[in-house]
């Protein structure tokens, strides 16, 4: 759509601008403020310059948390994206069962995050949870409060359970937009199932899939509530992801300076990814416009 130039449109934006400025800009400025100051308590602050940033950049604790975070996000993407696409390919295309699948698959997406944590906390318990009990009965040692490996498996399976449907729903939306003519042409050409996927479905899904990948990366990168409820960051620090570590630092120990510096660096990473996301989105819009 060709838009007309109208500077008065700013008045329509104004309420949003004021509101988001209040709830985003002021807090961020507070964070910036803390990140360059030090305190001895009593609300006495003095200038610390970039000291906190240097401290944090050399802090093993942050690098460890970042490492765990990247590993978590990578595993999540590696499982959820292929699985989501696979599920989407197998979904009924129309009719009652299609709606049924859509509704059932959306259920985990609508559960409050702490309840997701609670569900898996219970589900994985050896004494009262179905999963834990079954594994225990099969003679597999599984205790997510003591073994880091079990804790990791639990939070990963939990996230797969929670969010794979999102990838599947997006991929399904992409699949549905492919005109039937493409499949008919493929059939005439005697294309194999793999060829249909590789040359018709995958390219047509690519745009939506990019959105799905970015959304999943973003959301897994700032995940807090679910692992916090299940493992509380433990055993030890083994599941302390970035957000959990940050909240521990800021609200638990009240280390304002380091926490603020940490926050800003965290925020910059998010900004960068948002920019990639935005570019993908606008490119898609342009393609559609043609």
């Amino acid at each position: 759509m060709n838009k007309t130039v109208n500077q008065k449109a700013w008045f329509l934006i104004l309420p949003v601008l004021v509101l988001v400025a209040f709830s985003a800009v002021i807090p961020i400025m507070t964070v910036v403020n803390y990140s360059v100051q030090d305190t001895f308590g009593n609300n006495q602050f003095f200038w610390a310059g970039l000291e906190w940033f240097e401290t944090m950049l050399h802090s093993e604790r942050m690098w460890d948390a970042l490492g765990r975070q990247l590993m978590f996000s990578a595993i999540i993407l590696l499982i959820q994206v292929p699985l989501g696409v696979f599920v989407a390919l197998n979904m009924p295309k129309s009719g009652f069962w299609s709606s049924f699948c859509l509704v059932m698959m959306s259920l985990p997406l609508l559960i409050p995050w702490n309840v997701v944590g609670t569900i898996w906390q219970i589900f994985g318990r050896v004494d009262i949870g179905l999963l834990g009990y079954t594994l225990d009965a099969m003679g597999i040692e599984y205790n997510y409060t003591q073994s880091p490996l079990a804790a990791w498996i639990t939070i990963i399976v939990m996230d797969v359970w929670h969010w794979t449907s999102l990838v599947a729903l997006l991929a399904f939306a992409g699949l549905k937009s492919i005109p039937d003519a493409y499949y008919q042409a493929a059939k005439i050409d005697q294309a194999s199932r793999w060829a249909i996927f590789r040359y018709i479905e995958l390219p047509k899904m690519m745009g939506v899939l990019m959105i799905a990948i970015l959304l999943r990366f973003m959301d897994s990168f700032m995940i807090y509530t679910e692992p916090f409820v299940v493992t509380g960051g433990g055993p030890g620090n083994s599941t302390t992801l970035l957000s959990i570590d940050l909240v521990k630092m800021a609200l638990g120990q009240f280390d304002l300076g380091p926490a603020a510096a940490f926050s800003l660096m965290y925020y910059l990473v998010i900004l960068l990814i948002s920019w990639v996301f935005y570019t993908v989105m606008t490119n898609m819009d342009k393609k559609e416009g043609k």
Partner: protein
Amino acid sequence: MSDATASAPTASLSVSKPKRRFPIKGSVIVMTLYLVFLLLPIYWLLNMSLKTNTEILSEFTLFPNNLTFANYITILTDPTWYTGYINSMIYVVLNTTISLTVALPAAYAFSRYRFMGDNQLFFWLLTNRMAPPAVFALPFFQLYSSVGLFDTHIAVALAHCLFNVPLAVWILEGFMRGVPKEIDETAYIDGYSFGRFFVKIFMPLISSGIGVAAFFCFMFSWVELLLSRTLTSVDAKPIAAIMTRTQGAAGVDWGVLAAAGILTVLPGALVIYFVRNYIAKGFALGRV
């Protein structure tokens, strides 16, 4: 992935019905397995919520032996529990109303006009949707404490605007760009003022978009825990925070906890049917 699709028999192409491209059996099995995987943990929660604590802890049963609704009754009669639901509902509804009210005109401006800094502004909104709540927890706490809003519903509602307003703007813009511009122009020629045109003609046209945006604002505010927990202590404590506190106590009342969980799933489950075709669009910020 590649293995799975490659192993699907290619013979399915020759099935007589042209629309069925997959062997029915294979896909039914896959979907059944996947849905069982999704529903099993939820079933387990439901199962536990209908048991007594002694049954939960003493024996392991797939179905409740002595079906009891005592856990639900506890929640619905004990003020420390049910006020949590009321508090959550209040700030979620407040937030949805605020978000939609400010997002509607803004989304219209983004979808119709070009103005100074529009792209930058649109991008900046997106970054707020993506911002990690953990970064904002502490500054929000201080900001709302200093203006005397700590532990009020409006504080949580405003805090959730951080990600819900951008979300609503993006979703609504996605729907609005689908409405041809000629409609606006015709209305203006017919003598409609902007306000009347927007409310009488334009909003009914994008009613499904408004519904979807409202649903997503509602949902994201409903599922969020970190900010709502940080900004409340007693008077506005949401159900989610009450649940985590119970877990900290020495003897966990599993049955009640499970029942509380089931009750938080209900609002989403009740409305999901109506938005089923827009879920992907909503999550993709109106861009699918």
